[in-house]
């Protein structure tokens, strides 16, 4: 269910390495729990983030939820399509609904992230 090509945070973000950069989104578990997403705030390109800094907010019908940086780094890309079509988060959280790309500072804290199996354990317990 959770792809092996990436790692995960306890706050339900995913992070995927791509040629030294790291693409970031939220997991299907998080998307399902948010209910219908109505809009999303994302940072500007160039924003410097440290691990677990809030980098944006998702507003659903139910609540506002912070997004946390899975690794430290500088924002190099922001998904404009997602800002225009936030419902993508409910439709394709692991794909089209990526949020930002980071240029990591060093390894950015990559080794602290959970692998897919550990993440599945975590959400299994939260059921």
């Amino acid at each position, binding site marked *: 269910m959770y792809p092996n090509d990436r790692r995960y945070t306890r706050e339900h973000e995913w992070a995927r390495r791509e040629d030294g950069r790291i693409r970031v989104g939220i997991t299907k578990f998080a998307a*399902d729990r948010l209910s*219908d997403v109505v*809009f999303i705030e994302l940072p500007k390109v160039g924003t410097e983030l440290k691990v677990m800094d809030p980098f944006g907010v998702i507003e659903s*019908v139910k609540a506002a939820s912070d997004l946390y940086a899975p690794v430290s780094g500088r924002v190099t890309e922001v998904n404009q399509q997602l800002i225009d079509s936030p419902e993508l988060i*409910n439709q394709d959280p692991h794909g089209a609904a990526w949020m930002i790309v980071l240029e990591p500072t060093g390894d950015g804290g990559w080794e602290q992230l959970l692998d897919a199996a550990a993440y599945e354990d975590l959400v299994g317990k939260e059921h």
Partner: protein
Amino acid sequence: MTDQPLRRTSLYDAHVAAGGRVVPFAGWELPVQYTGISEEHQAVRTRAGLFDVSHMGEVRVEGPEALEAVQRLLTNDAARLAVGQGLYSPMCLPSGGIIDDVTVFRVAEHAYLLVVNAATRAKDVAWIREQAGTAIVRDLSDETALLALQGPRAGAILDGAGGGVATTLPFFHLADGVSVGGVRCTVSRTGYTGEDGFEIACAWDRAPAVWAALMEAGKAHGLVPAGLGARDTLRLEAGMMLYGNDIDETTTPLEAPLGWTVKLNKAAFIGREALMRQKAEGVTRRLVGLEAAERAIPRPHYGIAVDGQRVGVVTSGTFSPTLRRPIGMGYVPVALAAPGTAVQLDVRGRPAPATVVRLPFYRRPKT
């Protein structure tokens, strides 16, 4: 809150089978949604939705002094109720602060049924017993399941499952001994959505049969099971109070838009002196409707400001599925309570423009 284990209603298995996502709520495990809050919300506005509200409490007050007890407990006037008729009322402290908001029905000559909130049930029952004098108070919550069938098709669905009262039962009236799916139910024409609808009470363990019969009868009408999420967005659009958010022991019915439920000229009631004084002096704050001008959704506890000065607080808010814009409610000083007043919401440290608007946000079309 306490560490007491969460309780399940008798419909828990039905919720799980229907794909409900169960969450803790006021000490209960209840579905927040099945397919999605907006979808369930729209179903209730255009067709019908079925909610499990068995977590709510039912308290019967009876005996020759039942009316006297109910009149003492409630700000609204229960003396005008015929048997089978009900009303909505705050229940206040001597301070005028609201202990709970309830619906009360006169179920027999000398018997009243109060439907109370789940989170306040224990406190309510203790308070009602303390104030009831010689009237007999029975907490029927554990033996009573409650479903809410809401939406323009609710009447047709109810009658399809047995019912037979949809065309004759007036708003805020109750009928006893109504058969739904072969189960004996008490049905009232009430709800918490702003739509036509019914609240259907039955014996605790018979609720699955009633639920199944309504879902079956509802197939042809597009009935869906609906969760707590849609219940909240629906009541908010309809401008209804959520106890614990919009009203509590620190707010009075005159500050909330519930002045119409305070009958100062009826028999003495708890909170009357405080409310008379507040009315004479004038309230200093009011709960108002808010519409945000941008993509900024009001959420509980957000500050309300004017010219950078905090003047009030948001108590409820959401993105309105019907109006497709952010709506909310909150308390502001009386001077800022007029519809059209411009304020700012403190949305995570960023000021966002909002406007005071008249409640409710949504009124169902007249049929």
